[in-house]
């Protein structure tokens, strides 16, 4: 049975997503977002979408996070919401 | 085998990359490459149109795979017409806007042309394709390029407007993508024709309804139909002229085309008007869009902003016409895609000329324009009259079909909205004309009463003249266009 693993990962994904948009530190957002992407990529790997998972791992968890960190570096780290 | 449909899209694409490379050799070179690419594309579009008129729908299999396995370009009368419109406008604008681009973004002009070409590629691709997902990718190309180019405009506010546009645009595109997903899960196919065939069997499904709503919502967001229009005025008003001139007439029109295509080809008019009961609500929405657009335009103090709201109003025309549920209304909507493209283009060409000479388009900066730029203003007046709907300009004839369609459908509120918006547009334009005509130019100084003509460069005027002629011609030949293109398409 696949769905219990799937379900657990999904719960984590949702948790990360909510955390990423509520944390008040943008660097934290970047890292949480990275974690979110990575969990998502796990989820897809579980569902057999290996190519998509691979891409998400390199793009979502990798490059996007770097971009986000770079942007935070050039702007401000704190936010009100 | 006829490769024209592919060439039509590929010429600007290849042109873009060659222009990018050529910019490292000589900056001017990229402009000429862009010009040549657009000329080829324009030629191909015309040739496709004539072929389609004589020998019917064209199908082009990408990579040689038969649909629905591969992607096909499927060009029938409707998109052939829109393709010609797009490539012609993009080409003419390229000729007209050199000076504007030099003035506004001189240091990165080559990159501007590359982006410009990619934008046109996107529009052409969206119009030519016969595949639902391919449509999404191409919409994203147009969006991405337009975000960028819009952000290059007004130093202070353009980036903000562009970012706003990104958020809303992404929501729109994602809705469309979701809709395609729902369609795919229920039909298993992505090819429009194939999907249409399969959909006939499963019309009652709630998934299909959701798919339809999502797709249409996505397209509405992209075309800025009334409550979803918030991004448009700022984005178009602050964009650099060289780009505003092409995005304003084309982007929304192409989205209207996509809507018509989804309605006619994919979901089928029968499904929309007989199974669903949404048509009345949408026509009311269009009525609100028309009135809201027109009346908001009344309160604008800047010419570009005013035109942007007029676009919002015109979108209401097309959406309403398409949803009237009869062939007259649809004819009007399709004809208006063509006509509104031309009219808006002419207006923005004139605005570009004004900006080139005056830098500003607030109403207070427009005084004395008739004396200073008589030719530009002549074009502007003609386009304005066309928006108002004065015969024999083309705007009248699409309005004619729309109102007829409204009567036939019994949608008198829609007809009333059309008439009221015409009146409001008349007020709007004559307000501008009055300022340009009666108020002497304060900048010229009192000691120099002799009126000096400071016209825009010839290339700009020639383009404007060409488009003005096209406006009249499209009006005069409206009957021919309807008979040879729109009616055969709708059958």
């Amino acid at each position, binding site marked *: 049975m696949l769905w219990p693993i799937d379900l657990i990962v*999904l719960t984590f994904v949702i948790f990360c*997503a909510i955390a990423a948009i509520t944390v008040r530190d943008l660097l934290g957002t970047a890292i949480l977002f990275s974690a979110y992407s990575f969990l998502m990529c796990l*989820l897809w790997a579980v569902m057999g979408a290996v190519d998509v998972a691979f891409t998400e791992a390199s793009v979502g968890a990798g490059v996007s996070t770097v971009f986000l960190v770079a942007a935070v570096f050039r*702007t*401000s780290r704190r936010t009100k919401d | 085998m006829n490769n024209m449909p592919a060439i039509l899209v590929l010429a600007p694409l290849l042109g873009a990359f060659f222009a990018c490379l050529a910019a490292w050799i000589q900056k001017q070179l990229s402009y000429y490459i862009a010009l040549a690419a657009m000329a080829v594309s324009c030629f191909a579009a015309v040739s496709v149109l004539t072929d389609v008129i004589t020998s019917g729908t064209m199908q082009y299999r990408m990579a040689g795979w038969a649909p629905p396995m591969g992607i096909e370009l499927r060009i029938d009368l409707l998109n052939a017409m829109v393709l010609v419109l797009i490539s012609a406008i993009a080409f003419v604008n390229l000729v007209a806007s050199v000076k504007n681009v030099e003035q506004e973004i001189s240091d990165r002009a080559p990159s501007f042309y590359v982006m410009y070409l990619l934008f046109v590629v996107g529009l052409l691709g969206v119009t030519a394709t016969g595949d639902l997902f391919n449509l999404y990718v191409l919409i994203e190309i147009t969006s991405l390029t337009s975000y960028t180019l819009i952000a290059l405009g007004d130093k202070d506010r353009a980036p903000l407007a562009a970012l706003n546009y990104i958020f809303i645009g992404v929501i729109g595109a994602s809705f469309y993508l979701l809709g395609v997903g729902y369609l795919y899960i229920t039909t298993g196919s992505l090819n429009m024709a194939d999907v249409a065939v399969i959909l006939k069997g499963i019309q009652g499904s709630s998934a299909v309804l959701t798919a339809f709503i999502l797709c249409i919502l996505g397209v509405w967001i992209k075309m800025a139909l009334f409550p979803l229009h918030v991004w448009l005025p700022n984005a178009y008003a602050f964009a650099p002229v060289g780009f505003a001139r092409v995005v304003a007439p084309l982007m929304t029109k192409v989205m209207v085309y996509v809507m018509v295509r989804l309605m006619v080809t994919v979901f089928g008019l029968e499904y929309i008007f007989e199974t669903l009961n949404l048509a009345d609500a949408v026509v009311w929405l269009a009525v609100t869009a028309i009135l809201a657009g027109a009346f908001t335009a009344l309160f604008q103090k800047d010419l570009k902003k005013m035109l942007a709201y007029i676009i919002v109003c015109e979108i209401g025309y097309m959406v309403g016409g398409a949803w009237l549920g009869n062939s007259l209304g649809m004819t009007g909507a399709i004809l208006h895609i063509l006509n509104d493209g031309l009219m808006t283009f002419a207006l923005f060409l004139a605005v570009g000329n004004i900006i080139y000479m005056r830098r500003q388009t607030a109403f207070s900066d427009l005084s004395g324009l008739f004396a200073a730029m008589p030719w530009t203003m002549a074009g502007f007046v003609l386009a304005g009259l066309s928006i108002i709907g004065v015969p024999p300009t083309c705007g009248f004839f699409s309005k004619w079909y729309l109102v007829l369609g409204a009567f036939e459908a019994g949608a008198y509120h829609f007809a009333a909205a059309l008439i009221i918006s015409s009146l409001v547009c008349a007020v709007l334009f004559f307000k501008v004309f009055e300022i340009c005509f009666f108020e002497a130019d304060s900048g010229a100084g009192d000691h120099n009463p002799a009126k000096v003509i400071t016209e825009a460069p010839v290339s700009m005027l020639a383009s404007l003249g060409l488009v003005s002629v096209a406006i009249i011609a499209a009006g005069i030949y409206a009957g021919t266009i309807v008979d040879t293109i729109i009616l055969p398409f709708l059958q």
Partner: protein
Amino acid sequence: MSDILPLIVAKYNFWLYIILMMIGLYAMIAKNNLMKKLVGMNIFQTAIILFYVSIGYKHGATIPIIQGGHGGHSAHDAVIHAADYINPLPHVLMLTAIVVSVATFGVAMALCVRIYQRYQTLEEDELRMRVSERITHE
């Protein structure tokens, strides 16, 4: 109860994607910070990708790489059953979608940096205030 469980098992993936999508959409509409909005946008897009990937999933099938197809020739001998492999098409579409989303993300980020250069803030309400200040100063 026995009816509900299979329903949940059959549909939960779709429901969860809807939840994720709602989170993303909410962040895009309601958040005040532009970066947060961008992250919301990404969540929104990944949710859609999740939806597509879920479409492609098939019970009892494996990843869409033909076994024994290495080198290409041996595959001719074995008969390929469609039921053994997951549908590759949604994956292809989603590869494209991911690329598009990262491209959009990059452009949006560049815009954010540019806006910050000009206004020294990324909070929407403050931006609105500063823009209107600028207009009244003119």
